[in-house]
């Protein structure tokens, strides 16, 4: 059966036919976009007119986020900014530390099991003049149950006395840079760095396997996708053991599951040889809504955690250089073997030295295994300079820049981590566009909220949370931003032949908007209202999911 969707306006992102009013679909595939008269020739059809007053775009593609966003919503959100929950209610941001503690206390009052842990997430003290949380403040809420607040950056956690006690850390004489001590010689309850947080996290309810993927979390994640207009989303670092894969296959396979998920297998905890064979075994298990067989390599850490690898002149505050998360030889092996077997690799590099290592390694790998159209993609790639973008171009690399990060933490980079000049060049989407490096922009949800229209706004305006315009020269245009969140991201996943634009032969994936992005423009794009999505021809209203 053929359905013809009627819309107020369709922004197809297909340059050959950029605007349309109707799109015809059959069996989840687009037959064509244009005017009704042109499409009627496909044969008997049904007109779907509920979008007659709405604007359709190709379903948005989020090229770097994590399913963990879905899992975190079973815990208390204590972020500074208003954030839409999977159920559609906008949770008000906590504008003071007192508000954070009040929200945690309210959540505590609802718990019946006295020993149950109480996890909260997205705390960000930089908006409270960097006032730190002390365990005594959390003890005032409960001394019986462990409480833990994960920071928005994901790199720090604050816990109460009970949690320290359970983790064996409630003692004097601790000498560790990740565990600040109070005047009494005991830890204050702040834990800095993943290796310190992880052993305590399990006690406060942040169980790692659960955060990676559980059934309820998958559903919550998919609901957020509908609300953000996203039809295809990555899970950019997963171990993908057999049980997780079969769970994901089952859940995403349900007809009512409203998102296409693209999980990348990450390199940690497996030898390079086993990594290659694992993704080769995963690839054939792909389904329509679960796409397997890609690799994510983490090369360095984070800039705000001072664990990213920077070239000279290094960190602005003099911190020592960061850490490698993979040996250069292993990176070389993974890149070469993946080129050889046609496996797509995305590499996380935050610092410019890490980016340079990938560029140098890629150059040698391509000499050994000449290959065009590999689409290997540098993820984050926040500090790359123009010379590095030139090399990306030469080597055929794509880049996915962290536009949202620039908004939320740009001021910190300006003042503390890399200093004014390099803070202005961070996430240089303008340079990527000028030089013709294929690029996307991302949220890294749950680190920042999922929402490609907001991400596009960040990349066009480069305005930080305090209102500073950071790097005027790297702003992109509305057309470039809309491209980046559709075809741009699809290209980095090698899926642009299938999704990313509304044109004949592609999947019937649409974002349904109440407002026209071209009318909203550069200043107001983030305020564009999302009605819902269409995935493979199936309609999902944000108000229903």
């Amino acid at each position, binding site marked *: 059966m053929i359905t013809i969707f009627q819309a107020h306006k369709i922004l197809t992102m297909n340059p050959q036919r950029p605007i349309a009013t109707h799109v015809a679909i059959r069996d989840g595939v687009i037959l064509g976009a244009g005017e009704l008269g042109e499409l009627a020739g496909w044969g008997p059809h049904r007109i779907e007119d509920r979008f007659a007053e709405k604007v359709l775009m190709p379903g948005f593609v989020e090229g770097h986020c994590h399913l963990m966003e879905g899992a975190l919503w079973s815990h208390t959100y204590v972020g500074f900014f208003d954030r839409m929950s999977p159920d559609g209610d906008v949770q008000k941001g906590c504008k003071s530390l007192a508000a954070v503690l009040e929200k945690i206390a309210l959540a505590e009052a609802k718990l019946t099991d006295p020993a149950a842990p109480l996890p909260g997430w997205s705390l960000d003290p930089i908006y409270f003049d960097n006032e730190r949380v002390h365990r005594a403040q959390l003890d005032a809420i409960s001394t019986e149950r462990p409480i833990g607040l994960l920071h928005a950056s994901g790199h720090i956690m604050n816990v109460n006395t009970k949690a320290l006690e359970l983790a*064996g850390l409630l003692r004097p004489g601790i000498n*560790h840079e990740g565990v600040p001590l109070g005047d009494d010689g005991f830890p204050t309850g702040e834990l800095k760095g993943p290796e*310190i947080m992880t*052993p305590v996290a399990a006690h406060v309810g942040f169980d790692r396997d659960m955060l990676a993927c559980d059934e309820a979390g998958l559903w919550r994640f998919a609901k957020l996708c509908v609300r953000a207009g996203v039809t295809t989303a990555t899970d950019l670092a997963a171990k993908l053991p057999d049980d997780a894969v079969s769970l994901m296959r089952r859940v995403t396979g349900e007809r009512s599951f409203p998102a296409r998920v693209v999980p990348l297998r990450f390199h940690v*905890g497996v*030898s390079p040889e086993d990594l290659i064979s694992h993704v080769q075994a995963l690839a054939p298990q792909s389904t329509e809504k679960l796409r397997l067989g890609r690799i994510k390599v983490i090369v360095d850490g984070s800039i705000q955690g001072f664990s990213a690898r920077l070239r000279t002149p290094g960190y602005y505050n003099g911190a020592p250089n960061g*850490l490698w998360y993979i*040996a250069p030889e292993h990176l070389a092996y993974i890149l070469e073997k993946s080129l050889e077997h046609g496996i797509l690799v995305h590499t996380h590099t935050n610092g410019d030295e890490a980016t340079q290592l990938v560029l140098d390694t890629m150059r040698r790998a391509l000499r050994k295994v000449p290959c065009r159209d590999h689409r290997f993609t540098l993820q984050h790639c926040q500090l790359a300079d123009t010379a590095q973008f030139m090399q990306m171009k030469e080597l055929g690399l794509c880049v996915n820049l962290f536009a949202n990060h620039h908004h939320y933490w740009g001021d910190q980079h300006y003042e503390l981590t890399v200093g004014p000049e390099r803070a202005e060049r961070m996430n240089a989407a303008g340079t990527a566009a000028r030089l013709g490096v294929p690029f996307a922009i991302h949220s890294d949800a749950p680190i920042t909220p999922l929402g490609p229209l907001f991400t596009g706004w960040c990349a066009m305006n480069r305005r930080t949370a305090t209102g500073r315009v950071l790097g005027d020269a790297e702003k992109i245009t509305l057309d470039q931003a809309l491209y980046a969140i559709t075809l741009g991201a699809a290209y980095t996943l090698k899926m642009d032949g299938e999704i990313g634009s509304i044109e004949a032969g592609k999947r019937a994936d649409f974002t349904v908007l109440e407002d026209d992005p071209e009318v909203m423009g550069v200043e107001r794009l983030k305020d564009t209202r999302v009605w819902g999505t269409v995935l493979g021809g199936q309609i999902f209203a944000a108000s229903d999911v």
Partner: protein
Amino acid sequence: MSEAVPPLTIIGGYLGAGKTTLVNHILRRSNGRRLAVMVNEFGSLPIDADLIEAEDGDLIAIAGGCVCCSYGDDLMAALAKLADLAPPPDHILLEASGVALPGSIASTVSLFGQAARLHGVVVLADAERLPEFLHDPYLSDTIERQLRAADLVVLTKTDLASPQRIEDSRTIARAHSSTSSIIESQGGDVEAALLLADFDVATVSRGSEGPHQLHLETQTLPMADAVNPDAFARSLANDPLVVRAKGHFLADPDGRALTLQLVGPRYTISEAPARTQPGVVVIRKLPQAAEEPR
């Protein structure tokens, strides 16, 4: 600290330094000791199929009571799993990944030390390639930080390296690891003996690959009189020729029986098990060349 908490030795060093070779060597010669070996991933650790008794995800039980455990990105969870083993292992060997900083691992292990107590950091370095690594702009600072964290540096593959390279590597190791002991490997037996808690001095001295070839000497201090525990341990730890010591002694003034474990400059003192005889075995290098005091 109770004796039931097993000692943990971190084996660090860049790719190709011989960490896995050493771990395999030690596993093959466990001689009844119940070793737990922690590796980043199983990929590089070839365990003969007939030695595997049971496999449970990231834990493999090996004939003779040893286990192998892969820790991936969650070292502490793996350590907690080992703590549940009954009876506990005699010794834990943690093989760090090639770019990991053993110093960071050491401080994290000491922090969450319920399952193990840190016994020493051993860093392996390929005597042939160490000088070139120090000139690699991507790697030099990582290798230097590894060496700085070492209690004991083992220069490996000395049979393949020219005398000049070995000398250069020795100089580098000394420059970046001024407080540690530096030895040259001859095949694994001596490192194995040095790493494990219960080395048998007689066996080590007699073996063809024993200390004589390495210019090491062993000495047993009878410890007839009680001593101040910290002052005694420090005197050994500050001696640049002492690479390893273990044994029991009586504390001055209360007469408690204590156990000393020492690797290079790092030592731990714990309550001695019941019915132990006093005596501390010390392995030291023969003074070939003058060494700076540490």
